[in-house]
């Protein structure tokens, strides 16, 4: 087993950032998705030995991760934060970190340049200070330092953040090639469609809990079963609510200050009927669909798992 989280909880004071998370990964790419503040970064920090679990065990290659050079020699990590030794050049940064990992300077320099070339960083930029780099260039350098020693377990925290389409494609290609070479990759992102281009294996984290894990299609099916909520702003909310409660595509109706809120499992059919059959007496002034974004999935899944 490459990575094993067993009942891992991590608290920061009263805040439970990770709550009894159990996860086994062995090969392939797994996307860790969830809204901001869900616990993805804490997962990464615990997995890479930055912080210790409050309870539970984290193991990689059958050994504890915390303060274990044997494990770290096989781990690569791309942090989310845009942090560098800005005075270094890109090539120097990658090579220096490789030497800190135990490589001889000459080998480190050569492998660093190979990795930067693979990731598509222009040769003329290699010897420029990192502080002059664009966001996409910085992301590639960050990735290169994590890959230069050919890790067997790779953690990528929002690796495509701020990248242009070209950089995005290069990085995605490199991650896929690593998967093909047998590396276990964990990619954290709050943008589901982005990670779906990399993998079908998804682990959803919300409220510090691992609320769903499996194929992206299965997760999407769950998403499809979530009733959509539509808010109708209308003058006579009581009249509208009474009528809507009889419609077949409506699961629930709630009267609110400025109208009614409707839950419908078949949003499209509901909207079509609303267009045709809305009486003027309701005084319909407008409608908004809520929870149409990914956050609704996370909120829903978190609610289901509670």
């Amino acid at each position, binding site marked *: 087993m490459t990575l094993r989280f067993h009942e891992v909880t991590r608290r920061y004071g009263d805040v439970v950032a990770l709550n009894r998370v159990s996860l086994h990964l062995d090969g392939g790419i797994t996307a860790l998705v969830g809204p901001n503040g869900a616990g993805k970064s804490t997962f990464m920090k615990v997995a890479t030995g930055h912080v210790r679990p409050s309870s539970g065990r984290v193991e990689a290659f059958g050994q504890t991760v915390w303060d274990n*050079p044997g494990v770290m*020699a096989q781990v690569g*990590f791309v942090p989310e934060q845009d942090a560098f030794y800005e005075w270094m050049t890109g090539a120097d940064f990658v090579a220096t970190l490789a030497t800190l990992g135990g490589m001889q300077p000459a080998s480190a320099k050569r492998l660093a340049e190979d990795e930067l070339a693979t990731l598509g960083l222009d040769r003329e930029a290699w010897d420029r200070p990192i502080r002059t780099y664009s966001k996409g260039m910085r992301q590639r350098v960050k990735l290169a330092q994590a890959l230069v020693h050919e890790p067997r377990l790779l953690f990528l925290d929002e690796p495509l953040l701020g990248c242009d389409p070209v950089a995005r494609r290069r990085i995605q290609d490199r991650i896929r090639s690593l998967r093909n070479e047998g590396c276990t990759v964990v990619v954290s992102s709050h943008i589901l469609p982005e990670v779906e281009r990399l993998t079908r294996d998804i682990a959803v984290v919300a409220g510090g809990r691992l609320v769903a894990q499996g194929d992206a299609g299965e997760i999407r099916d769950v998403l499809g079963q979530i009733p959509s909520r539509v808010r109708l702003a209308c003058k006579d909310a009581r009249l509208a609510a009474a009528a809507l409660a009889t419609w077949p595509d409506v699961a629930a109706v709630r009267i609110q200050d400025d109208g009614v809120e409707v839950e419908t499992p078949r949003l499209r059919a509901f909207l079509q009927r609303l267009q045709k059959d809305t009486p003027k007496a309701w005084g319909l002034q407008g409608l908004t669909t809520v929870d149409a974004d990914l956050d609704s999935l996370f909120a829903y899944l978190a609610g289901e798992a509670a």
Partner: protein
Amino acid sequence: MNETAHAMVRPVADRAPLFDPAVVRFGLRQIFRTRKFMIAALVSAVPVIAGIIMLFVDVAASAKPDYTFDAGLAETTAFVILGGTVPFVALLMAGGMLADEAEDRTLTYLLVRPIRRSTLYVSKLLPVLLVTAGLAAVQALLLGIMRLLAFGLAGSDATEELVGGGTISSGALIALTVPAAAGAAALVGIVLAAVFGVVTLLTTRFHFFANLLVYLVWELGFGLTGGGLGRLTVLRYGMSFLDQASPSVVGGGLMDQPSGVAFSLFWLLLWLVLWALAGAAIVRRRDFNITSAAS
């Protein structure tokens, strides 16, 4: 998997090495680029400036019968270098060690290298000690050279008086005093740096003020009072070392009841090791919750 890259990585040792040479080299590179180092280098020039001022005072009081090259150097080293500039250099160099990198969020790159945390701490401390010792010793050496240029090799009438009836050549006098001053400065610098390094780990955000407080209250407050808690201060043993390293020359005039050279040296080195181990133990257990937002 590319076996080439793995073959180029040295095998991970079963036992944690005391330090990692690559991290030490990188630490030195980092230090020489910092503004703190530039400030520390400027601070290190203060004793020379103070020495020049004292020279003018000395020249004005040239009739003073017991004044010698060594006594002036020892006094300046004791009160300007040990008591002022060296602690400040140590504070600048050690304050923020690891904490600054945690704040800059670059520490994350070091934490995921195959290096034990205790090794990482010692490897980050060593460059700090080297630079602090270098700057501290250079202060005393420059001061010595300056006074040598001013007074020359010729002794004075006071020399005989100071050595208690015996005689000593000017060359021997310089040979004893300058290394004693440089050694005392370097020793005080590295031990204080080790102390400040630990305080920094305990109060990451306010390390400068915490270290300043430690220096002013513990070292100066207690250290200069002599007995009691003063016996646990770095300054006391640094002064003792300086006072006694060339006792026939300085004549034990710097402080009351100084400890012997051997005991002072032993105490300073023990203190250095204990504080370094304390820092390593803290880092071994400490969480570094490096966040994406600049803190």
